[in-house]
């Protein structure tokens, strides 16, 4: 795993290509950046670390010409630099992979990769050559199987992330900024991503890497800059050797360890959710499982193994081809019925599946429960606000303001709103699809506490996560899913990460069995 540049500290003699001094950026009511310092060297992987809402995405958007700094200085390759448009930034050699997917559904993979700088002759697109170039890039990314001419809307989320990366690589960049690229990637994909990053740095290209997973930073990072409340609290720490305690302390001002709440022994109870032989052709087959009140069941698997579809089908949002879902002894056939029986689901795509972006936080938090707060059809916003504020405290929402539109929240804070929606009482079974996607270390620990607390109060939880340690740490029982089938079931404490990864990736256990 050794590669050039991965020495754990700045490459000796490497020149800084990018330097930010005292950069300030304000939004109405918020100082998103409040004096940021950052220095990035040629050929290094510079990691940005910070809580949700610390200003990481804002910072890179300033670099990308999307936002304009209110004050402060940026120098790029030794020259003062203030890109007016994304185009200007690209021309200067800065390519960006944004936190939220920025693809056009109805364009093909190749067209998305080259959007804005199409290969063309007299305005006519050169489809063959751009498809060929796209294929090259995809091959380099380890995904030669993604067809360059397939429409992006037909790709799974992980495939879209690959296309986003392909777009960044399609530019002749000197600096590539990656904002939480691994959030939608599973284990094997992350390894692939790191291979690419090493290739890039070997060519002298600088990478700014943002992630909430400390393990990743340790593996790929050279230096780390920590942001807190829009300020640089520590710069250029060595990524390998700085103790976790110190990093977390600089981020949060507290010392939180990456800890899971302890499991307590549980009485055996009758399952509340029983899923029998559930099948949707082409997505998953013959899923049989049960969850009891107070139990947390985790489903591990690769992206694309059909876990989201299974969860949505249990919730009644997709119609099964065969099989049944029973909750409390009664069949569940649709979302309305599911919610009425006390099932709640936090879906995986926050923007498209969960949020009303223009509505205030509290209305988003009470989207599934406002009828409960209402009296005779008239809503009670006072109670709703109070309840939302309680959840906000529980999940460390930043800023702690439930009246601002969700749109203005940082990615991780938006995720907290999605999960928070179902913590507001009355739920008997909670379906969580990637609940911690993009959530910072501190808030993550709080969220685990909350979920465990709910279970102790008798709520049943079915959890899908691509982070194996999370599944192992939080769940009582683990199901492993591979290519649409549940292939293994065991209590969490009887499994370890390597076993799960083997199960998930290797086909050996299931030789000859079609999905």
């Amino acid at each position, binding site marked *: 795993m050794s590669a050039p540049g991965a020495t754990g500290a700045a490459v000796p003699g490497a020149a800084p290509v990018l330097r930010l001094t005292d950069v300030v950026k304000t939004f109405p009511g918020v100082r998103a950046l409040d004096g940021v310092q950052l220095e990035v060297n040629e050929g290094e992987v510079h990691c940005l670390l910070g809580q949700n809402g610390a200003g990481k995405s804002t910072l890179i958007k300033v670099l990308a010409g999307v936002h304009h700094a209110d004050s402060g200085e940026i120098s790029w390759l030794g020259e003062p630099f203030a890109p007016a448009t994304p185009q200007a930034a690209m021309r200067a050699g800065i390519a960006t992979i944004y936190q939220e997917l920025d693809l056009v559904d109805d364009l093909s993979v190749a067209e998305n990769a080259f959007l804005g700088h199409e290969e063309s002759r007299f305005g006519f697109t050169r489809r063959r050559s751009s498809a060929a170039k796209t294929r090259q890039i995809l091959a380099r990314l380890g995904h030669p199987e993604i067809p360059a001419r397939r429409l992006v809307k037909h790709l799974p989320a992980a495939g879209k992330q690959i296309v986003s990366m392909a777009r960044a690589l399609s530019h002749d960049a000197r600096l590539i900024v990656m904002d939480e690229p691994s959030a939608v990637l599973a284990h094997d994909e992350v390894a692939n991503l790191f291979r690419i990053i090493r290739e890039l740095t070997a060519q002298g290209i600088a990478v700014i890497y943002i992630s909430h997973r400390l393990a990743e930073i340790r593996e790929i990072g050279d230096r780390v800059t920590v942001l807190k409340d829009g300020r640089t609290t520590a710069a250029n720490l060595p990524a390998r050797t700085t103790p976790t305690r110190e990093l977390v302390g600089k981020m949060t001002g507290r010392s939180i360890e990456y800890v899971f709440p302890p499991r307590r022994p549980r009485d055996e109870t009758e399952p509340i959710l029983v899923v029998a032989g559930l099948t949707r052709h082409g997505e998953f087959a013959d899923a049989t499982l049960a969850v009891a009140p107070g139990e947390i069941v985790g489903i591990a698997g690769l992206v694309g193994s059909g876990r989201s579809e299974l969860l949505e089908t249990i919730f009644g949002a997709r119609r099964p081809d065969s099989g049944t879902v029973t909750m409390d002894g009664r069949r569940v056939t649709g*979302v309305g019925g599911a919610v009425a029986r006390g099932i709640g689901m936090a879906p995986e795509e926050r923007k498209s599946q969960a949020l*009303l972006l223009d509505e205030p936080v509290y209305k988003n938090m009470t989207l599934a429960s406002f009828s409960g707060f209402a009296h005779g059809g008239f809503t009670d916003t006072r109670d709703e606000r109070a309840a939302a504020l309680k959840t906000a405290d529980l999940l460390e929402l930043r800023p702690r303001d439930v009246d601002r539109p969700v749109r203005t929240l940082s990615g991780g804070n938006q995720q907290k709103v999605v999960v928070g929606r179902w913590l507001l009482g009355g739920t008997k079974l909670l379906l969580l699809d990637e609940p911690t996607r993009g959530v910072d270390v501190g808030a993550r620990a709080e969220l685990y506490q909350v979920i465990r607390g709910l279970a102790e109060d008798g709520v049943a939880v079915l959890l899908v996560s691509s982070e194996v340690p999370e599944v192992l740490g939080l769940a009582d029982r683990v199901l492993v899913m591979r290519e649409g089938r549940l292939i293994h079931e065991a209590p969490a404490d009887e499994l370890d990460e390597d076993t799960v990864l083997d199960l998930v990736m290797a086909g050996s256990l299931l030789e000859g069995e079609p999905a």
Partner: protein
Amino acid sequence: MTAEAVRAKKPRQIDDGVIRNLGLVGVLIILVVIGIVTRPELYSDPTWVRNNVLTILQQASAIGVVTVGMTFVIIGGGIDLSVGAIIALSGVWATTLATQSYGAAGMIFTALVVGVAVGVVNGVLISYGRLVPFIATLAMLVSARGLAAQISGKQTQVSANDTINNIASTKLIGIPLLVWMLAAVVAAGWVLLNRTTFGRRTVAVGGNPEAARLAGINVKRHTLMLYALSGLCCGIAAIMLTSQATSAQAAMANLYELDAIAAAIIGGTLLSGGRGTIVGALFGVLVFSTITNLFAINNLSTEVQNMVKGGIIVAAVLIQQFRYRSLTQLLKR
């Protein structure tokens, strides 16, 4: 939330909608000032001014009611091109000789039932037939006008019912009954949108239908109800218009759909759904009817009227945006 926290956030409480509406009030004031400058002799007579205001409101009443229904539909992510046609069908049906024989109550009942029924058909086509709202309601526009022409034999049907005919000339406390009706519908619409679960669902369904569905809202049924509500408003408007014209015909309320959509959008409703205000929609309607009044008192020729009207609409939106931006700037300090 502590008392301090609430107070500290006061400025944000003034939300976009209100500021936009302030912009529209500004536009209205400018229009009135133009009226005063161009026809000072009329505006010097207080009785005339009072009457003029009432005339503007009265002329706005039927379209105002339709716009309230339209605003709900648009906020809920749809569009209703059939409003004018529904009015025509309701009006014509309510004024057939057979219906008139049941008296005023029968006529009103018929208009409302026809309106709601057509709205329900729209809703079913869109919710359960999965037709695009634009196409479904366009088809309904064509069909309903055709049916209205069939029923009326393409004749103008005169209302012989004095109770109906007098609605337009009755005043309560000096204010025309039609204006009271508009006020009632606007007030009810405001409460429905802002204070009830129905309104909250409407915003959710229009803002992000998938999220609404996954939160357990019955999106299809709700969508259906939105079109029924729009149909109900059309039924009410049909009675108002029939009373004003003491008659109904298949071509009545021509192009009301465009006016209602335009008023809703000028009032700050997002055409793509998920956001909108009833008060803004009312102001939108008032802007249009004040413009018409301004033209009338200045006796502009139709072609000049039209040329100018387009310009005023553009100017109105620009002024409103300008005020909106500068006010938000101001409140930020």
